[in-house]
């Protein structure tokens, strides 16, 4: 059973008076030096409610602005007002302090919270207008009490004062005369926590569109503790908040793990749902008074507003699979273990690459990483730096160290796979989870596929261990398929059925029958379509090649077979074929992305489509990030620049580097023999030659004995799995083609192809191809006389200009005052210029349509 994230809720409470009275930094300061300059200055640095609402990161937290919008706002953010700021957002709301005090009263079941009658009277209308809270909570607020009694209790030290705008408006009593764990201070902290937790729970339940009665279980993941002196952390915040929130059918428990607790709790919730123990589990947390103004000394010192004036809460509703909501992949969990150690690289490896390695994925296969998302506006002035950015730098450095990205691509990687932080420093709140709301939206709309959430915890602060902690999990698109029960996925999968049409080959139909038997003996489930008898193999009797193709198509159409191997079979225009050969130098396998038909009438466009098809086939065969090289044929440089533009648009391509001394993604003949790239992209006729040559080089030519044939037809919108072999293919090649087909079917090649073309489309494939056609027409035939600027050494070069336009391209540069020469490099024609003119020259050539 899959578990999915059905909805999330994010809330903030503006609590300026609690910064002064309850924040641990201020409490310590008051104990040590009650008259300090800092304490005197502090009240002048507090924000108004409207200022807090208009603070950009807060608007992101409740979903009114996106992280992408925030990333475009120049830091610092505290001096900029967010346009169209609102108190309510799609994920939740920002509650003003005075209304929150009433909610605290509503959450008190021990008659500990007392509010002034006048204060309740003037606040109640606004509180009642909050649609989220409902009658039952409103009814718990009461009418308030006389001021004298409240003031007396606070003076006597029996109660913790509740303030608003500097005025005493209520108090929280101690719950025991002697027991420290039930002191007024602790009760205040816990009731604040509980009230913000209730608000988060209600928001998430509403956003998930479920009934309160549907919730079976609540997991609280804060850093607070409730209990008495005999069980200081006895708990159960979860159930006490569920009670007030009206989740009548729920029980729950508390999960602790410092700042990592939310990530732990979501994994636990997902596992509880996946196991079938509960159908709907809500993970929730409220905010922490202790951390209000935690770094306020630094903020005051730098003359900033106190940015830690917000209590924060979040909740996420995890349910059984609904076929649409983003799923939590329990096979992709990262964990920092006792043995991992505390070296930052060991920590990040355990959380990021270890789970990916186990699943055969690359770092780039995760579209977005959501580590701790502390707001850098808060942490930078406090000396903690930009925490999310450091995490991204570590992940990028890890990817570079593993050779998954180039060092020069580090900033681009961080930009694409990272986020800016917006979460208030409420300890556990930034723990990766603030992005869940946006992540679920992006995954549902298809712009992201996989998001990794990383929680980290500073266990050493508890003085029980020096260990660090952390866990990670991946949220991914719901494939809409019901997941098999856990025990079945461990067992055998149904083997795909692959048909072979046997007539029409140059080595006789017996060749095909022997191939079918060879494949069957290696475990492929083969259906033979032909005129000969087959022992032990399912057969469909036909009497001609045409009949065989008709039968094959019927079987494919009906779903009776998953794929077929055939020969002499036409594909529609736009379909590439991806062959697979064994290269002679080292026996390395290589995919030849080409076509037996017509991928496009334009060479470069055809090469681009072949490349995407080749990547899809390689991925379906289990190569998570196949390396791609383009055979140096006509149009290859243009195809390369188109594919690189696609890469800039967000379509990940892992480029191969030629084994020749000058490297580059354009492959020479040597690379063909060495199998330098996983996927070699080439045009139709060259591909045909290569597959035949590399199939028959051991036999002298007539009998292809090595490799897997021309492979599957792959194209946008083409959904049949049909593989082609040559009529000269011998038994081993045909048998290999059957195994190749089975492997593609098992790798769900259709979905992979769909995803690849969708990803390429998102990166601007159609636009790029359209612009290319336009650019070609725009490039003027350059005949006007122009004399070259003074000669200078040409140390730089630009490739990718069509050989017919190369002189015109140089003249275009001359006209702009850039001295340029032309030449032929080993990967094609070049325009050469000095180092200092390189960038400008590129711009000019792009502008004029000479290069992409």
């Amino acid at each position: 059973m899959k578990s999915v994230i059905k909805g999330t809720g994010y809330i903030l409470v503006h609590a300026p008076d609690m910064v002064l009275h309850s924040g641990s930094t201020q409490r310590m300061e008051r104990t040590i030096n009650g008259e300090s300059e800092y304490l005197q200055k502090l009240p002048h640095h507090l924000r108004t409610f409207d200022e807090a609402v208009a603070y950009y990161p807060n608007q992101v937290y409740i979903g009114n602005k996106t992280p992408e919008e925030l990333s475009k706002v120049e830091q610092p953010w505290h001096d900029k007002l967010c346009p169209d700021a609102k108190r309510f957002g799609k994920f939740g709301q920002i509650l003003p302090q005075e209304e929150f005090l009433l909610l605290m009263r509503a959450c008190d079941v021990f008659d500990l919270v007392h509010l002034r009658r006048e204060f309740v009277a003037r606040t109640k209308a606004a509180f009642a207008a909050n649609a989220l809270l409902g009658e039952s909570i409103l009814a718990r607020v009461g009418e308030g009490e006389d001021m004298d009694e409240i003031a007396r209790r606070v003076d006597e030290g029996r109660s913790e004062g509740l303030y608003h705008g500097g005025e005493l408006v209520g108090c929280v009593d101690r719950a025991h005369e002697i027991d420290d764990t039930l002191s007024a201070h602790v009760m205040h902290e816990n009731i604040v926590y509980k009230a913000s937790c209730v608000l988060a729970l209600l928001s998430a339940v509403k956003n998930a569109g479920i009934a309160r009665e549907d919730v079976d279980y609540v997991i609280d993941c804060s850093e607070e503790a409730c209990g008495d002196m005999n069980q200081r952390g006895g708990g159960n915040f979860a159930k006490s908040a569920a009670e007030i929130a009206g989740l009548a059918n729920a029980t729950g428990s508390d999960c602790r793990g410092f700042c990592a607790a939310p990530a732990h709790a979501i994994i636990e919730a997902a596992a509880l749902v996946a196991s079938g123990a509960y159908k709907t589990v809500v993970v929730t947390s409220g905010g922490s008074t202790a951390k209000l103004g935690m770094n306020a000394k630094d903020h005051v010192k730098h003359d900033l507003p106190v940015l830690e004036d917000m209590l924060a809460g979040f909740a996420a509703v995890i349910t059984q699979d609904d076929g649409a909501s983003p799923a939590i992949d329990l096979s992709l969990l990262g964990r920092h273990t006792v043995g991992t150690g505390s070296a930052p690289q060991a920590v990040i490896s355990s959380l990021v690459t270890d789970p990916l390695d186990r699943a055969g994925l690359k770092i780039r296969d995760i579209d977005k990483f959501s580590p701790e998302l502390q707001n850098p506006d808060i942490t930078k002035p406090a000396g903690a730096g930009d925490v999310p950015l450091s995490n991204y730098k570590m992940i990028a450095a890890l990817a570079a160290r593993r050779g998954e990205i180039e060092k020069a691509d580090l900033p681009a990687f961080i930009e694409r796979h990272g986020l800016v932080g917006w979460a208030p420093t409420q300890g556990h709140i930034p723990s990766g989870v603030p992005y869940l709301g946006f992540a679920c939206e992006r995954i549902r709309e298809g712009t992201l596929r996989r998001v990794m959430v990383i929680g980290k915890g500073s266990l050493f602060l508890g003085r029980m261990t020096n260990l660090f902690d952390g866990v990670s999990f991946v949220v991914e698109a719901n494939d809409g398929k019901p997941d098999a029960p856990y025990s079945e996925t461990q067992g055998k999968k149904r083997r795909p059925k692959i048909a072979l049409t046997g007539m029409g080959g140059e080595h006789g139909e017996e060749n095909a029958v022997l191939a079918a038997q060879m494949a069957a003996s290696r475990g492929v489930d083969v259906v033979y379509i032909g005129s000969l008898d087959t022992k032990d193999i399912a057969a469909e009797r036909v009497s001609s090649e045409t009949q065989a193709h008709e039968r094959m198509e019927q079987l494919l159409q009906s779903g009776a077979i998953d794929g077929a191997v055939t020969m002499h079979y036409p594909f529609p225009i736009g379909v590439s074929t991806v062959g697979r050969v064994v290269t002679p130098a080292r026996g390395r396998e290589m995919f030849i992305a080409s076509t037996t038909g017509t991928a496009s009438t334009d060479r470069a466009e055809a090469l681009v489509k072949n490349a995407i098809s080749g990547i899809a086939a390689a991925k379906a065969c289990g190569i998570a990030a196949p390396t791609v090289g383009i055979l140096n044929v006509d149009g290859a440089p243009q195809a390369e620049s188109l594919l690189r533009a696609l890469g800039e648009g967000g379509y990940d391509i892992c480029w191969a580097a030629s084994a020749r001394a000058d490297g580059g993604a354009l492959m020479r003949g040597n690379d063909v023999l060495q199998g330098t790239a996983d996927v070699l992209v080439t045009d139709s006729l060259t591909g045909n030659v290569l597959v035949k040559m590399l199939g028959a080089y051991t036999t002298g030519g007539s009998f292809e004995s090595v490799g897997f044939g021309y492979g599957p037809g792959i194209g946008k919108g083409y959904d049949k799995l049909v593989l082609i072999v040559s009529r000269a293919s011998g038994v081993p090649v045909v048998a290999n083609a059957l195994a190749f087909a089975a492997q593609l079917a098992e790798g769900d090649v259709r979905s992979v192809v769909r995803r690849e073309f969708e990803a390429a489309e998102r990166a601007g494939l159609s636009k790029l191809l359209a612009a290319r056609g336009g650019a070609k027409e725009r490039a003027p035939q350059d005949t006007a006389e122009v004399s070259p600027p003074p000669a200078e050494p040409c140390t730089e070069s630009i490739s990718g200009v069509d050989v017919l336009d190369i002189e015109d391209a140089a003249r275009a540069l001359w006209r702009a005052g850039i001295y340029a020469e032309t030449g032929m490099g080993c990967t094609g024609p070049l325009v050469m210029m000095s180092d200092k003119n390189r960038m400008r020259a590129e711009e000019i050539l792009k502008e004029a349509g000479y290069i992409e």
Partner: protein
Amino acid sequence: MSILKGKKAVIIGDRDGVPGPAIEACAKSAGAEVVFSSTECFV
């Protein structure tokens, strides 16, 4: 003259910089005696 060899090292690591135990391993390798190691947290 060496800075660490034979000295008593007091280590104040940072959760979002270099944590205490990682510094501790380095200090020991330089011949210092680690008398205290902790990690601070600003978030």
